[in-house]
């Protein structure tokens, strides 16, 4: 066999193989094969709104993590941070898609042309005040310490949500959660390992980690008060009330900080999340402008 044939063989095999494809990069509908009927007794609008909350958290944090691409401290971190970003992007796509099947598209569906899938209509054609993510995931990434402390908080919280959602009465949410639990466990452990190294590393890394903890801790106040949607869906066996695992998350974070020789600031008093109500910091709009700009410039295009 000569090398020219080998080149073509390599390309040929590529058409049959599956293993090389990162999750979410395939050509198929990501919700294919999952029953997307809204379960009995569940309000579709509520379910869609809930999927937007969880989907927006993932989308916005994924975008923040992606800002590290080509700028990471080491190649291992380049790969690991991209991995977290890819996992969250995959979760976001499924959740926004689910919001679409629940009919929660609002204005975005009419702003986007028909050929644009629901996940993209929602990601690219909503205004900042239509996003439902917590403020925690939207604030500027800062240095590597801020990035790791934020990832630790966000993944510990999300892991608590997803662990419980595996038993959701919505088969789509339950499937997304079952897959996501493995991903989020890795994210949390990866971030925790770095918080340990930074907190208990050099004087400079300790200082930076402490600054990050002090800056991010107050945002924990937003995470544990159920919205009305969450309360109704929890009653219907579909969602979880985040108030139910506040203690658990607090213990996880406390354990990591102690081992990292970092002082835990006072645990903030829970309040309703402004982000879940569409009220955001000024940092979200530029993030979305960059994410959405090209797609909006060519509204009739298909990509």
């Amino acid at each position, binding site marked *: 066999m000569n*090398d*020219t044939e*080998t*080149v*073509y063989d*390599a*390309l040929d*095999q*590529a*058409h049959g193989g599956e293993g*090389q*494809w*990162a*999750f*979410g*990069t395939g*050509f198929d509908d990501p919700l294919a094969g999952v029953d997307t009927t809204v379960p009995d007794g569940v309000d579709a609008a509520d379910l869609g709104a809930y999927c937007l909350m969880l989907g927006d958290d993932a*989308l916005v944090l994924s975008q923040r993590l*992606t*800002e590290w*691409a*080509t*700028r*990471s*401290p*080491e*190649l*291992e*971190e380049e*790969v690991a941070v*991209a991995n977290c*970003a*890819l996992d969250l*992007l995959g979760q*976001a*796509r499924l959740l*926004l898609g689910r919001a679409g099947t629940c009919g929660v598209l609002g204005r975005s569906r009419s702003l986007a042309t028909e050929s644009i899938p629901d*996940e*993209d209509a929602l*990601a*690219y054609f909503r205004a900042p005040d239509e996003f439902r993510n917590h403020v925690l995931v939207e604030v500027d990434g800062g240095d*590597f310490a801020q990035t790791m402390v934020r990832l630790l908080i966000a993944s510990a919280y999300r892991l608590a949500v997803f662990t419980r959602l595996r038993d959701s009465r919505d088969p789509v949410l339950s499937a997304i959660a079952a897959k996501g639990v493995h991903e989020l466990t890795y994210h949390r452990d990866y971030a925790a390992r770095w918080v*340990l*190294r*930074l907190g*208990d*590393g*050099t004087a*400079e*890394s300790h200082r*930076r980690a402490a600054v990050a903890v002090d800056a991010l801790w107050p945002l924990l106040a937003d995470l544990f008060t159920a919205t009305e949607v969450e309360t109704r869906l929890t009653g219907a066996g579909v969602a979880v009330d985040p108030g139910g695992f506040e203690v658990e998350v607090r213990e996880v974070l406390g354990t990591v900080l102690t081992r990292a020789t970092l002082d835990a600031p006072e645990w903030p008093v829970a309040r309703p999340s402004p982000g879940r109500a569409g009220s955001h910091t000024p940092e979200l709009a530029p993030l979305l402008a*960059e*994410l959405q*700009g*090209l797609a909006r410039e*060519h509204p*009739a*295009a*298909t*990509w």
Partner: protein
Amino acid sequence: MTAVADVRESDLQEYFDATIAHDRRIEPRDWMPEAYRKTLVRQIAQHAHSEIIGMQPEGDWLLAAPSLRRKAILLAKVQDEAGHGMYLYAAAETLGADRADLTDKLIERKQKYSSIFNYPTLTYADVGVIGWLVDGAAICNQVPLCRSSYGPYARAMIRVCKEESFHQRQGFELLMTMMRGTEGQQAMVQDAVDRWWWPSLMMFGPPDDDSPNSAQSMAWGIKRHSNDELRQRYVDMTVPQAAVLGVQLPDPELALDESTRRYRFGPIDWSEFKQVVSGHGPCNDERITRRRAARDDNAWVLEAATAYAAKHSA
């Protein structure tokens, strides 16, 4: 004095030559001539640097990718390139090199990377064209390296080539989608092809009669085919693909030679190539500046990891 140390260098050289002659692999612990080791380190390092710097032009579109699916594909690709860099630096380390030291040499411009990555990515079509043409050219260059005489390099190449073939497929699929899209998208694709075609031909290096190190590398089995031979294969592979895509390659002299069944193409502007290689391409400074910033701005992170490991190694 051990018996091993008494083995004469000429015997070792003979064994090495026989290994190469029989097309068997040299492994890290085998004796090898110093010049062979140096040439390999230089080539593998340059290749590793190309993978890492090559993340930047496409990485510039990650935050703005026009659909979530495209964002996922691009992020996975850029991540793959970081992985390729890691395998290759690891292969160089089997020859006694050190990754951090090689990175320093890159940043100090003492070692080169593929000059194709010194061109800017102006539109999203560039992402597709890089996948199709640049990853395509990389495949033509690298598939023969899967038979390189140095074992760790050959094995790294097998893994890398499989992933590059996915990148090429994904790039081509993006371009096909854009060519079925709006007129604006079609024009974007043609414009990107116009800008990347000639630089992609230059990826195979200078013509054979101006490639001083090639003969020795071929004799050592580090290189398997001449630059011009690989370039010709690339052209022969790509012209039919361009026809499927419905784009024009920007070379009026491009034509099938009926007698050889190979494509003739016009002269390459080697003065441009030399400009870019010598550091005067459109983005050379930007690429190195960013790599330097990644190293320097985050030095405290690695220092912390080292300090932590020292404290906790029982």
